[in-house]
C-alpha cells in the first residue's frame, strides 16, 4: 500500500515538475510567435507601402517636347570623348536590335579607337527603342541610364548587348538586367531602386521623340557632323570603312585655325 502511495506521489511530483517547465516554455513560444507575427506584419507593411511603383517598361508622356529647344534640352544622350572634339558621331540605337548589337560590338570599338581616343570625335548615344516590335527594349534603355548614374553606361551597354539573346524574349527581363549591373560593378541597391521604378523614363521617351522628329525609322542610325553649327548627316552605309571615309572627309573640310587647331 505504502509503495503504491509513494509511486503515485512520485508520478504527481514528476507531472508537477514537468508542468513547471512546460508552462513557461509554452508561454515563451506563444510570445515568440506573437513577436514573429507582429514583426512580419509591420515589416511587410513598411516594405510594401514604400515599395516602388510599377517598373516603367513603356514610353511616358513628357510635356513640352513639341518645342524643339525643350526637346533638345531633355534628350541628353550619353557622351564619350572630349566634349570639344571637332567631329561628332551620334548613334540612335535599340538594345533589342540585333543589327545594333553587331554594330556596337564590332564597328563602334574601332571608331572609338581611331576617332574618340585620338580626340578627333566624340561619340553620343541616343536611345531609340522600337517598342512596337521590341517590348523589352525600353526597360533595357532605362536600365542602361541607371548604370550611367553610376558612370557605368558603356560597360553596361556592352554586357547587355553581349547577352541580348538571354533577355530579349523574357516576359520580364528586370532580374536579368539587374544581374548585369552586378557584373559591371554598379551598386546593387542603388541600381535596383533605379531600374525598379520609372527613373529615366522621361529621358528615354524624349530621345525617342527626338529620333522621330529627325525622321528616323530604324536602328542603328549613325549621324556624323563636324565643326560648330554643321548639320548632322545621316549615313546610309554604316560599315567601318564608310564611316571612317565620311569622318575623314568632314575633318578635312574644317578650316584650320591660326593656332594650328581645327
Amino acid at each position, binding site marked *: 500500500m505504502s509503495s503504491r502511495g509513494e509511486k503515485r506521489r512520485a508520478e504527481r511530483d514528476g507531472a508537477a*515538475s514537468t508542468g513547471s517547465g512546460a508552462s513557461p516554455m509554452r508561454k*515563451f513560444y506563444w510570445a515568440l510567435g506573437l513577436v514573429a507575427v507582429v514583426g512580419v506584419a509591420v515589416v511587410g507593411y513598411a*516594405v510594401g507601402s514604400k515599395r*516602388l511603383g510599377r517598373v516603367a517598361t513603356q514610353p511616358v508622356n513628357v510635356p513640352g517636347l513639341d518645342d524643339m529647344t525643350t526637346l533638345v534640352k531633355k534628350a541628353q544622350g550619353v557622351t564619350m570623348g572630349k566634349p570639344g572634339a571637332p567631329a561628332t558621331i551620334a548613334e540612335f540605337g535599340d538594345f533589342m536590335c540585333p543589327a545594333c548589337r553587331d554594330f556596337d560590338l564590332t564597328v563602334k570599338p574601332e571608331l572609338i579607337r581611331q576617332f574618340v581616343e585620338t580626340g578627333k570625335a566624340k561619340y553620343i548615344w541616343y536611345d531609340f527603342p522600337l517598342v512596337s516590335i521590341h517590348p523589352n527594349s525600353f526597360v533595357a534603355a532605362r536600365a542602361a541610364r541607371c548604370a550611367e548614374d553610376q558612370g557605368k553606361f558603356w560597360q553596361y551597354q556592352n554586357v547587355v548587348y553581349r547577352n541580348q539573346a538571354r533577355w530579349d524574349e523574357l516576359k520580364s527581363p528586370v532580374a536579368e538586367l539587374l544581374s548585369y549591373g552586378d557584373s559591371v560593378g554598379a551598386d546593387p541597391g542603388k541600381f535596383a531602386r533605379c531600374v525598379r521604378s520609372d527613373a529615366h523614363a522621361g529621358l528615354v521617351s524624349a530621345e525617342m521623340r527626338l529620333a522621330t522628329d529627325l525622321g528616323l525609322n530604324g536602328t542603328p542610325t549613325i549621324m556624323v557632323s563636324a565643326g560648330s553649327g554643321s548639320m548632322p548627316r545621316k549615313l546610309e552605309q554604316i560599315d567601318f570603312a564608310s564611316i571612317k571615309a565620311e569622318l575623314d572627309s568632314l575633318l578635312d573640310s574644317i578650316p584650320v585655325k591660326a593656332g594650328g587647331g581645327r
Partner: protein
Amino acid sequence: MTRSDRADPPTSRMVVAILSMVGFFVAFYLMAYSLGWMGSLICGISSCETVQQSSYSKIGPVPVAAIGAAGYVVLLVLAVLGLQPARRASRAIGGLLLAGAALGVAFSAYLTWLEVGVIHAWCIWCATSATIITLIFLATLPEVGRIRGRREAP
C-alpha cells in the same frame, strides 16, 4: 530525468530570444532598403537614407544590415536551443550567447561611432538596433554566473 532537465527554463534566454527576433526584423527592414526592395525608409526625424547610402553601409558587397540580421538569427537560435531541457545548463551555449552578444555590442558601437563621427547623420533604425543588442548583452550577463556555477559544481 537529470537535474538540468528539471531546471526551470532561464528567463534571461527567453528575453534574448524575443529581443533577437525583434532585432532581426529591424535589421531585415534596413536590409530590404539596402538591396533595393523598396524606394525609401520610414524614418521620422533622422537621416536613415544618408546613413544607408553611405559607403559604410556595406562591407564589400554585403550590406551591414544583412550581417546584423544574420547575427540576430544566430542569437535567436542559440537562445532557443539553450531553453531546451537538455541544454539549459550548457556552458557552451552560455559562452556562445555571451560572446555573440558582446561581439554584437562592439560592432554596433563601431557603427554608432561612424554615424556620429564620420557620416554625421543618424538613423533611428540603427539606434533601435544598437539599443536592442545592448539589452541582449545585458540579458546574457547571467550566463557568466551559469558558467561559473557549473565549473564550481562538484
